């Protein structure tokens, strides 16, 4: 089985670009990825593309062939939809495709246009990642769903809003020098605690922003990279995926995310490592509580112990396991379909020394990316290793 290497990456700025179409965003990101990879467009054999709310945001379904056009490639193109894990799933399928010998070079990425919907429209569009009959009809919003998990966590394990605030502060701090982040602005614990409530106990600064953006990368087989002389020092060595019951109410746990644990177990086994080998991670912090649930499910912290990790400095840039050195979804932004690929791009740059925050993890060789869909009814986990 061949290894899979990251040959090139491309990224738009993440932010509010209501006048830019999704296709324009992906055109920019994909051009960057193909140029950085240094491959001929004719060498790319497929497009695996993630997008969630295209029908609601742009009246545009069936986006994959359109995005292949925008990338200037004539190849089989498929859209993957798993809510906020859409491009994480696309990456996983691309890895499997290269490993099984079907393709040597695949363009994989995602895009989302969201800010043109406004807050109410985006709130509605995001809500459809939940169970329509039993959650949406009860008035559950996406922030509301995570608020239910936060309250359940507090009830089961304890913890305070202040602990969550430290996560937001950390991730904003990490994004200060990240030029494609939506927010390059420091915030304080007081800012978070005093922000207007969205769904209690979560306030505005516990939530990631509504974002437009795209990300893309070219994945290649080891043989292709060697043959073409491509500089690709980071490999994807593990991939895993997990699912859970759609509705929160139907789950065994309200304050744990077993789909992430299952995805992590599979990815660890695939890469032949364990959580103790991971030196840094990009996790799906759509809300502050989501980072807590992630770092516990991934095996970095025991259940109930993740909530204090940012406050204690364990997950900060100089901590034992830096989490979201990119700024995370919280500060970098969360254009839903683009997020999974974006996390892997940030991780690859951190491991190869090309990231503005690489100095924080100068000797790191192993990183993990965790991408969650909905209330973690879908999750992908990928292990990246600096192999050269």
């Amino acid at each position, binding site marked *: 089985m061949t290894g899979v290497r990251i040959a090139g990456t491309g990224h738009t700025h993440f932010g509010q670009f209501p006048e830019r179409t999704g296709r324009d965003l992906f055109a920019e990101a994909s051009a960057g990825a193909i140029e950085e990879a240094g491959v001929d467009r004719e060498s790319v054999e497929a497009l695996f593309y993630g997008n969630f709310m295209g029908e609601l945001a742009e009246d545009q379904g069936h986006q994959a062939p359109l995005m292949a056009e925008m990338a200037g490639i004539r190849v089989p193109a498929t859209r993957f939809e798993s809510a906020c894990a859409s491009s994480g799933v696309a990456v996983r399928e691309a890895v499997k495709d290269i490993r099984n010998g079907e393709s040597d070079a695949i363009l994989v990425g995602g895009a989302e246009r969201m800010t043109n919907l406004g*807050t*109410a*429209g985006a*709130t*509605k569009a995001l*809500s459809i990642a939940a169970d329509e*009959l*039993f*959650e*949406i*009809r*009860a*008035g*559950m*919003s996406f*922030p*509301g769903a995570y*608020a*239910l*998990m*936060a*309250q*359940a966590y507090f*009830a089961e394990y304890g913890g305070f809003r202040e602990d969550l605030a430290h996560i937001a502060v950390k991730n904003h701090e990490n994004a200060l020098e990240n030029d494609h982040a939506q927010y390059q602005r420091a915030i304080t614990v007081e800012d978070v605690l005093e922000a*207007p*409530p*969205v*769904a*209690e*106990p*979560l306030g505005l600064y516990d939530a990631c922003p509504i974002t437009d953006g795209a990300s893309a990368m070219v994945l290649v087989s080891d043989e292709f990279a060697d043959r073409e002389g491509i500089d690709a020092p980071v490999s994807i060595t593990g991939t895993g995926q997990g699912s859970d*019951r759609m*509705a*929160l*109410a*139907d789950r065994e746990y*309200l304050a744990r995310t077993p789909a992430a644990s299952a995805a992590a177990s599979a990815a660890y086994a695939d890469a032949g490592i364990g959580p103790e080998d991971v030196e840094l991670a990009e996790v799906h912090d759509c809300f502050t509580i989501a980072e807590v649930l992630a770092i516990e499910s991934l095996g970095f912290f025991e259940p109930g112990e993740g909530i204090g990790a940012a406050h204690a400095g364990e997950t900060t840039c100089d901590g034992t396991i830096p989490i979201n050195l990119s700024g995370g979804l919280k500060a970098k932004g969360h254009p839903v379909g683009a997020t999974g690929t974006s996390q892997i791009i940030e991780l690859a740059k951190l491991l190869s020394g090309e990231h503005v925050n690489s100095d924080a993890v100068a000797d790191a060789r192993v990183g993990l990316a965790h991408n969650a869909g909905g209330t973690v009814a879908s999750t992908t986990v990928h292990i990246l290793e600096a192999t050269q």
Partner: protein
Amino acid sequence: MSEQRDEGYDEWIDAIDRGEGYVLECSNGHGSLPPRRLCPECGAGDLERRPLPEGGTVDTYTRTHVPTPEFAEDAPYVVAIADFGVARLTGQLRGVDEPEVGMRVAVGVEERETTGDPLLVFRSA
């Protein structure tokens, strides 16, 4: 959308409204909500209707301030997940100023303020 009937679900909501709420239970004792053809836990096909217990216990709740447009005039409102033993239900908790995890609730059907659609509602029991 509101003209569309959702077989199984609408029947269930109507039953709760009449005070005749039920859950589905398979031979292995797993509870679930309709519509189902198979138990989502074990795939068993022998789903039987069991009466929904009269009272449930709040497992978690949130007061939502930023709603979807369909709940614009309802906000702020409290969404809760309550455990009824064989299954948990998600609904809105009304008439309670200070919700608490562990509080006992009864379930019924009331109207959504914004659209008038039926809404699963918990009230203190």
